[in-house]
């Protein structure tokens, strides 16, 4: 081994603490990079493999009722590979000991196993047999939540008549990875299940002989989905078709996609922060190293080492750290990625799991790590290369301190000599001080942005559940109803107020953009629902025209005053042009609203209500739910409080796990930055500190000189961290917002407090650990050696 390389190894060993601190930050960058890309890729591939294996369809359509032979006509559309029709029927379940309404979506399956699309994967038991009239397969989440399995029986009310269903199997399907009861906005597996029942049995139970109400199809390679959708819509129009749609509008698929998008966002925000900090750290550590090794550098050059050899010696130092970081970070990333993928896969109940990470990801991670280290080393390398041997071997010019701002301020503040020592040192190394401040501030910002996520989600929930949704219960009807049922509901004991909720499915066209949605409406005197804007203000329905949520307006690209083309779906297929009267900054969903009169003009009818909003007397809740459960018109009941609890559970599960990691990551940055600054400070000041000890300063007082400077820098990092966090949080909320919801920026005071606290604590602990070295200082030896 060459002598210079030997020096490299010794240097690395001597500076192992600092090298490790840098490696820690770099490894965190690599780990998050490998982690999120790995999880993203694994989940995407698992999902795609699942889709492929179970033949998840490309296009979906629902209608009121169509003869089964329509399937052949759909299949004949050019570009369609295969089409299959099914019956989908909601059922109320009467489960012993449960007085809350439980619902199921019953899907028909071919008893002879001829289905080829959206196949069920059996986890237990078998599929329904031909001729069996009451056999069902239930989805696994529902079975687990209700402790059900093959052999158990459930009483169901399907299409008005009571039927005792017998569970013969437990299964999963690619079109119900994520499932929602109508009226719900969050899955509740104990209250909603997906069932599969023999086609003939379901035809008989729902009085739909040789008829279907839903179909799905796959496309041939290269076929245009827009063309096919248009043709399917034309075919289904006479049968109350509500508009065919692709995967991107399919509830289960869209939700999964949203989750994957958030993983992507994580990759884009987090690793760059770490990389930046690591670059800074390499910069200051190498800078210091080269200053202390001037004489050695001069000597080596005098011996005939080239500038390039010297520069590459220091580059190797940085790269050695990067190698360790890339390897450790990749290993950690794979390990965390596997655990996280497993968690996700369990959550989504993928029938199998493939953890995948491509070599490209590791290569990318290594490149990032190397790049950051090399960039940080650049300034030091240049300084080392430029140093002329003669200059380098003469003792370094003594650090020049000048009277400046510090003096004026210090005199005014009545500084002690120690006070001047601290402040002048900071002013003497402005870059390094700034980098320490920035590094600590970045770690705080990262923490702040993560914590703000909780605030943001809570603010969204608050806006949605407490301001927009003021009803206690949402009662969904089996089919749209007129006013009679509202009166009936109002008569039930404990019901304080009833309001109808109407929604008609439409397609909105603007320019060449199109969105499938439903226009929602409320009566003029509605109290139980409101549209809440970003400031928390309720926005009234426009007298004429439509009101769009911000998400929907952005998707269509419309502004207030634009005119959109409205195509009514299902039943009467009317077309009209309506102005956009306003846009409301809502957080949840892409929605369209209109006044009741406007809606009736579009439908040319007194439009019936699909559901009703109820305010109830809490004391009467149990009795009321039992009564609702037995009403034949009632398909289901959504309780606002239960939904909100579910939401909070989900936030707690997902975000707190994430938070746990990020608190660790952010602390790692703070620790890395503070540790390196402290070590450099300590080595620069060993002489001064020893002198103070000789002069009779106590260890605690000497420690103060060291810690005082760090404390000042960390204190300066707090406001900077708040600003960075504020900005980072805004970037992150914007990136994490999706079609499903938009996150508000709403940091609470506690979030400021916690991020400051965690960072101060990490900084303090690190600084104290380094300060312990001051206590072990060998005064005599330090003073004997000339600096």
């Amino acid at each position, binding site marked *: 081994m060459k002598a210079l390389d030997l020096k490299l190894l010794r240097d690395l060993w001597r500076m192992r603490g600092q090298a490790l601190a840098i490696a820690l930050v770099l490894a965190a960058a690599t780990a998050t990079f490998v982690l999120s890309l790995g999880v993203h890729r694994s989940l995407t591939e698992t999902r795609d493999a699942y889709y492929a294996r179970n033949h998840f369809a490309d296009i979906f359509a629902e209608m009121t009722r169509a003869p089964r032979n329509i399937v052949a006509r759909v299949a004949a559309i050019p570009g369609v590979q295969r089409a299959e029709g099914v019956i989908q029927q909601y059922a109320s379940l009467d489960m012993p000991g449960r007085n809350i309404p439980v619902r199921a979506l019953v899907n028909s399956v071919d008893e002879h196993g001829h289905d080829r699309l959206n196949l069920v994967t059996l986890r237990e038991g078998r599929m329904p047999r031909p001729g069996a009239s009451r056999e069902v397969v239930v989805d696994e989440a529902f079975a687990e939540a209700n402790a059900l399995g093959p052999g158990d029986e459930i009483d169901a009310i399907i299409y008005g008549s009571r039927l005792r269903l017998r569970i013969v199997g437990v299964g999963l399907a690619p079109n119900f990875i994520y499932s929602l009861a109508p009226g719900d906005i969050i899955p509740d597996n104990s209250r909603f299940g997906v069932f599969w029942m023999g086609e003939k049995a379901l035809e008989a139970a729902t009085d739909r002989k040789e008829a279907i109400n839903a179909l799905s199809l796959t496309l041939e390679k290269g076929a245009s989905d827009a063309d096919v959708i248009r043709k399917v819509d034309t075919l289904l129009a006479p049968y109350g078709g509500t508009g065919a749609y692709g995967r991107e509008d399919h509830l289960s698929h869209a939700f999964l996609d949203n989750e994957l998008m958030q993983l992507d966002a994580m990759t884009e925000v987090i690793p760059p922060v770490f990389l930046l900090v690591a670059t800074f750290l390499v910069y200051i550590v190498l800078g210091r190293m080269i200053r202390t090794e001037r004489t050695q550098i001069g000597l080596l050059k005098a011996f005939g080492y080239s500038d390039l050899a010297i520069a590459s010696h220091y580059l190797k130092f940085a790269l050695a750290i990067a190698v360790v970081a890339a390897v450790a970070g990749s290993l950690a990333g794979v390990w965390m990625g596997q655990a996280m993928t497993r968690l996700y896969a369990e959550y989504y109940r993928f029938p199998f799991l493939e953890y995948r990470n491509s070599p490209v990801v590791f290569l990318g991670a290594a490149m990032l790590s190397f790049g950051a280290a090399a960039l940080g080393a650049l300034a030091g390398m240049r300084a080392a290369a430029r140093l002329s041997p003669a200059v380098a071997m003469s003792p370094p*010019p*003594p*650090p*020049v*301190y000048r009277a400046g701002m510090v003096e004026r301020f210090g005199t005014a503040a009545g500084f*002690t*000599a*120690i006070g*001047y*020592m601290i402040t*002048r*040192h900071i002013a*003497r190394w402005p870059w390094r001080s700034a980098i320490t401040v920035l590094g600590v501030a970045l770690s705080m910002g990262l923490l702040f942005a993560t914590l703000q996520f909780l605030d943001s989600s809570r603010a969204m929930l608050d806006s949605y559940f407490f301001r927009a949704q003021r009803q206690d219960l949402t009662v969904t009807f089996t089919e749209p109803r007129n006013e009679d049922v509202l009166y009936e509901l109002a008569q039930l004991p404990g019901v304080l107020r009833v309001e109808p909720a109407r929604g008609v499915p439409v397609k909105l066209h603007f320019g060449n953009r199109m969105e499938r949605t439903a226009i929602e409406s409320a009566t003029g005197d509605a109290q139980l629902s409101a549209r809440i804007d970003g400031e928390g203000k309720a926005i009234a329905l426009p007298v004429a025209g439509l009101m769009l949520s911000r998400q929907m307006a952005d998707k269509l690209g419309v502004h207030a005053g634009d005119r959109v083309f409205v195509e009514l779906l299902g039943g009467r297929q009317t077309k009209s042009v309506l102005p956009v009267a306003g846009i409301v900054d809502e957080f949840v969903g892409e929605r369209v609203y209109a006044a009741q009169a406007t809606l009736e003009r579009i439908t040319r009818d007194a439009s019936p209500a699909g559901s009703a909003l109820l305010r109830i007397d809490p004391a009467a809740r149990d009795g009321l739910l039992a009564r609702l459960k037995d009403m034949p018109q009632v398909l289901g009941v959504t309780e606002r409080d239960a939904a909100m609890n579910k939401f909070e559970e989900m936030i707690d599960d997902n975000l707190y796990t994430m938070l746990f990691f990020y608190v660790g990551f952010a602390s790692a940055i703070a620790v890395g930055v503070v540790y390196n600054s402290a070590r450099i400070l300590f080595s620069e000041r060993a*002489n*001064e500190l*020893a*002198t*103070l*000890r*000789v*002069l*009779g*300063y*106590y*260890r605690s*007082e000497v420690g103060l000189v060291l810690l005082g400077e760090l404390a000042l820098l960390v204190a300066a990092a707090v406001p900077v961290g708040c600003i960075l966090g504020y900005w980072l949080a805004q970037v992150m909320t914007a990136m994490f917002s999706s079609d499903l919801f938009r996150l508000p920026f709403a940091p609470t005071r506690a979030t400021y407090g916690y991020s400051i606290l965690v960072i101060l604590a990490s900084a303090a602990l690190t600084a104290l650990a380094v300060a312990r070295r001051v206590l072990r200082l060998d*005064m*005599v030896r330090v*003073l*004997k050696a*000339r*600096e």
Partner: protein
Amino acid sequence: MELAFRGSALGKVYRTGETEVHALRGVDLEIRTGELLVLLGPSGSGKSTLLNIIGGLDRPTSGELHYGGTDLVGLNDRELTRFRRANIGFIFQFYNLIPSLTAEENVRLVTDIADRPMEPGEALALVGLAERANHYPAQLSGGEQQRVAVARAIAKQPGVLLCDEPTGALDSKTGIRVLETLAKANRELGTTVAIITHNVGIAAMAQRVLHFLDGRIARTEINENPVDPQAISW
């Protein structure tokens, strides 16, 4: 005459791994209050070790050491620090000034924590640097820096000044100026002064000279007529 230090059978063993270095092998000494003492001897003979032990920077491995009525061997680190703070002024070969502090501020470093210090300006005036008070170490010559170090050491009016080769890095002219300030402190403030040196000539200014050899005091020489530093042949 009153005794400042009384040490008996002082031993110091440095252990580095397997090897043991006996830096002091049973030193008996008395230092009288107000005397000016010079420690002479070849390099490695244990002079610095003794001075550091006397000054409370280090502890003997064996033997006894008293300062006035205080048993120095029994003191813990904090007590030793308090002892230094109250009684000892150090001067080293390398001046060990704080580069970020001006001459006056370097002196204030001591007056900030001393019990009955003089004004920093007064201490600088004593070493003849009153007009350089606002200069940083980098703006002073080596001799001037060492005089600031002397001013810093005497500013708290210590009982004892311990100087380890104070002129080691200086030429004769500036070295003599530094020695003059030490003699002046001894004369005018009554400070006990101990000076380590290689330079045999310097011994002429001492009242007593301790000759070191191999971790022991080989010989004590009493100088009836100490000379003024000006008269030293360098």
